[in-house]
């Protein structure tokens, strides 16, 4: 079982959610985050005082998927969230040791 974590631009959330449900991913967790990658920050002025806008708003999507689904999920997220401009984001794939469905007690892939 793998955890696919994607950091994407906020306005792409709906497209990504749509794409994931089309390939059968049934549950995701979404968090509002801030971050930056290789983009440099820029400065703005507030009443004449400079402040650096380093952290840009992003959305983090986490989805627990089976090993077999991983490639499809990566493809779906990438094509739905891609704009070609800097700040499109990143996808991380990590291992999951155990999954439990709280309501029924199911474990493992049955809990996905």
């Amino acid at each position, binding site marked *: 079982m793998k955890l696919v974590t994607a950091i994407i631009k906020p306005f792409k959330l709906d497209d990504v959610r749509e794409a994931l449900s089309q390939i059968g991913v049934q549950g995701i967790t979404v968090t509002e985050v801030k971050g930056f990658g290789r983009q440099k920050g820029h400065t703005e002025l507030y*009443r*004449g005082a400079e*402040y650096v806008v380093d952290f840009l708003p992003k959305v983090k999507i986490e989805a627990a998927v089976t090993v077999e689904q991983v490639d499809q999920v990566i493809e779906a997220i990438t094509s739905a969230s891609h704009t070609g401009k800097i700040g499109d984001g990143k996808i991380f794939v990590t291992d999951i040791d155990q999954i439990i469905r709280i309501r029924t007690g199911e474990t493992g892939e049955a809990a996905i």
Partner: protein
Amino acid sequence: MENEIFQLQYALDTFYFLVCGALVMWMAAGFAMLEAGLVRGKNTVEILTKNVTLFAVACTMYMVCGYAIMYGGDYVLSTITGDGVTGADEPATYAPSADFFFQVVFVATAMSIVSGAVAERMKLFAFLAFAVVMTGFIYPMEGSWTWGGNPVFGMYTLGDLGFLDFAGSGIVHMAGAAAALAGVIMVGARKGKYGPNGEINAFPGANLPLATLGTFILWLGWFGFNGGSVLATASVESANAVAVVFMNTNAAAAGGCLAALLTAKLMFGKADLTMALNGCLAGLVAITAGPDTPSALQATLFGGLGGVLVVFSIVTLDKLKIDDPVGAISVHGVVGLLGLLLVPVTNDGASFSGQIIGGLTIFGWVFATSLLAFFAIKAVLGLRVSEEEEYEGSDIAECGMEAYPEFTSAR
């Protein structure tokens, strides 16, 4: 028949006075929203508490002793609630309580100017202690020398020297700013505002919609502030004057807003909303000393001057490390002085020398006594919250509650 006409005039003038006073009271909501919008989210509850309470303190202290100091009469208003007509040598044209009501809301306005300047780091109760002194003594004293017509410590009478301040650019606004400046100097800048190498760090306000709402509320309330200062409306002459004052007050706000926005755009490259808001208020302050004599175009230009000046003043004060989160000292003090100096341009009843002497008298008195008051409060109560409380936010430290409990964000 004559008596009936007099009754009507008395009633109408009293009614007008009371409604204008109510409009000025509404300015308290304006200040509260403006300040709440321009401070950070973690200090919002405290500044709202300050605004509500200072208004109550002002009303009470002015009733207890302020009004008596400013206009004579007994303390606790024991002789004021009488009839303006029965038994009087010369009948008043409006009810005496209406006079008190109108005056007391002006005191509260002057006091609330201080709250924005010392925001985010002054202790709540230290501020309220100052409010007691300011509204019970400092303001009434300078008020007695100006609107009260008394000589300044028996030395000179400002009215005789050609000093004229129609609705209070100097008496109310510059006075409030003088006290604010004293407070800012005594309490110091917010932690992290000024860097070691001359950097000025931005602390963006938490709620610009509230700040904008506050500005519009102040704009509306100002019609009462200036309009009521005509002191009458029940005759062709005074009704005309009231209309001119309303028109010019509005024109000046508009001029100030545009001038400030354009100045900010030229200086910073973008349309700084907070500067536009300060510009509206600067325009209003600029016309307050003399809204009755200019033409509408002149009023617009006077307001525009205030709008340009206020932007430069805000930036300059930051360079001087005088930390004023809402621009109160610039809007009310620097432009308050401008307002005084603009009066002789269209009004022969005032002279530049009179305005300057009056301005210096008001500023000198209020600034010096405020410094003393803050010094004393600092010794007894302490002026500033601790560094940890400042970091955590006054809302939790002083009030025990958050303004936006469901919005989580990085501090």
